[in-house]
């Protein structure tokens, strides 16, 4: 059994996570520019479930993942693991975090140390966490390799001798070595050939079923998200703008940005095909954010109020939070470039 079966139902929660980067300021007299890469992100992941974090490139999804793993220190906010606060400065707390939360990286070509054999890469977690005796590592590594559907002889190879799919399986195996409760998957299939994506996705689903894993699934592929996740959080320029159970979200998103994302994702059924997203302009710059709502410069529904005050996340339904001044009106609004399916309660 994994650690997921602890008494607390939530495996991970983050509260008001903030990470600002400084740009420039190297020269005297030139002010530093603050870039709010992640700006007040909060969410909770129940044990054994999958939460998807979606949004465009540069919206802070990957930074959020790094903050959770303390690969980067948050400027503010806290990460709680099974209810207990993670302290990035304490060795013990970090070890506890890393034995419970692991990550699968986006690019399997870059995330495996090129000069180490697969055996050495997979043996490392056992070594650094002293999970088992040195003599048992080989057997544990062989078990890991098998559990991700590869034959044991890949252990003697170098990463560059493996295909992209095989490498990503090794990346997954490495994450599983410590038997974590949560695995953060940062776009785990977007660097892979389309033909092997589904194999990796199915592997992730099988592992979740057999080990009770929770996933934080970072993606911009909404089709995949619908297939995999229990809940969805949409990020835009460092903030979560909408979060909801997956079924609710895909039935009727309440934030115009979510609706636009959904409308721009391809649908296999031609009759269900929505119009192309009616998003105007480029994603706003993090260096120079618009006043009020960050999305208003591209929003088809923007009104004067959107420039005046920034909307906060407010509940609009069961487990459904939206940060939009017009979120109430959004429900089932026919004018939106969303899918024809809509939430009947809002009409």
């Amino acid at each position, binding site marked *: 059994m994994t650690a997921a079966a602890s008494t607390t139902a939530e495996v991970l929660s983050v509260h008001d996570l903030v990470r600002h980067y400084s740009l420039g300021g190297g020269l005297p007299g030139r002010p530093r520019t603050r870039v709010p890469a992640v700006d007040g992100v909060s969410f909770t992941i129940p044990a054994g479930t999958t939460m998807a974090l979606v949004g465009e490139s540069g919206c802070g999804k990957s930074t959020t993942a*790094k903050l959770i*793993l303390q*690969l980067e220190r948050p400027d503010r906010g806290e990460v709680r693991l099974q209810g207990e606060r993670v302290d990035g400065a304490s060795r013990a707390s*970090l*070890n506890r975090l*890393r*034995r419970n939360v*692991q*990550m699968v*990286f986006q*690019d399997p*070509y*870059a*995330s*495996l*140390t*090129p*000069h*180490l054999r697969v055996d050495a890469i997979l043996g*490392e*977690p056992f070594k*650094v*966490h002293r999970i088992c005796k040195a003599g048992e590592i080989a057997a544990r590594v062989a078990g890991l390799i098998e559990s991700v559907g590869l034959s044991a002889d890949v252990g003697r190879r*170098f*990463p*560059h001798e493996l295909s992209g799919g095989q490498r990503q399986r090794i*990346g997954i195996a*490495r994450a599983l*070595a*410590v038997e974590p409760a949560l695995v953060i998957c940062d776009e785990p299939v977007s660097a892979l050939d389309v033909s092997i994506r589904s194999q990796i996705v199915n592997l992730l689903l099988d592992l979740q079923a057999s080990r009770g894993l929770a996933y934080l699934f970072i993606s911009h592929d909404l089709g995949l998200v619908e297939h995999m996740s229990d809940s969805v959080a949409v990020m835009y320029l460092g903030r979560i703008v909408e979060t909801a159970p997956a079924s609710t979200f895909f039935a009727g998103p309440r934030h115009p940005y979510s609706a636009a994302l959904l409308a721009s994702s391809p649908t296999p059924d031609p009759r269900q095909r929505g119009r192309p997203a009616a998003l105007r302009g480029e994603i706003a710059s993090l260096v120079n954010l618009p006043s009020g709502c960050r999305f208003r410069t591209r929003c088809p529904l923007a009104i004067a109020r959107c420039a005046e005050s920034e909307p906060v996340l407010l509940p609009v339904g069961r487990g459904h939070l939206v940060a939009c001044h017009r979120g109430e009106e959004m429900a089932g609004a026919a004018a939106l470039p969303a899918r024809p399916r809509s939430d009947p309660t809002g009409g």
Partner: protein
Amino acid sequence: MTPAAAEATTPSTARSALRAIRRAGPMLLSGGTVLALVVLASLFVPLLVEIDPLGIDVAQKLLPPSAEHWLGTDEFGREVLDRLIIGAHISLRVAFAATLLTAVLGIALGALSGQYRLADSIIGRFSDALLVFPGFVLAIMILAALGPSELNVVLAVVVLYVPRVIRTVRASIIEFRSADFVQAARAVGVGDMRLLVVHILPKSFGPVMVQLTFGFAWAILVEAGLSFLGLGPPPPSPSWGNMISAAREFIRTAPWIMIAPGVMITITVLSLNLIGDGLRDLVDPRLQGKVGP
């Protein structure tokens, strides 16, 4: 070489790695063969034949090359060939010791300055200060201050060459410490020390090997130059530089005394430079013609 092979991740880099091997192969082969001949000759000839680099025989002085004296004799009647072979010991020993010490110091200090900001600013300023001086002039200053000896020549070479190695190691650490595979290892729970030694440092071995090969060649030249100025290992020890220095007076009457060690220095340094060029092309084909002292 494995580091180059390890880079062959995608077909296009595999192709460029192949190209690099094809380019580097002849250089490595020719340089390696010549260097191996020099080293093997200096090591094994004294075991097979009786060699007497210090045996003075004034009756036989300044004889031109002949069947009896293959490379002639010098002003004291010593065999030039014998001195050349033993001289290789001194020149290569100095260069080897200097290179080894440079490697150890350079990797350790480079790792420190790549890891820690404070260490970086201290070590960095010191290396900058050393790099400001023309290398050979600084070597002369050091030898003038410490006095001529084999050990001091080694020290001078180390002081002059170590900043380059420090920079090379530091640069690869800074390049790779935020790489995905390092982040991934950190996420697994690998500590800073192991991260550095197992994941990051090996990535710098290729460029460092290239630097050290050029450093080796450069050390031979510095030793020869210092000896020529009388700042190297003191006579009668037959280092190549000493032999040239002593042969100055006889360049008109007995040029063979000078030509023999001159040719040896040239082919040894040339072979090392060929090896360095070859390694560099293997390690990073983009750097063609950019490294070296």
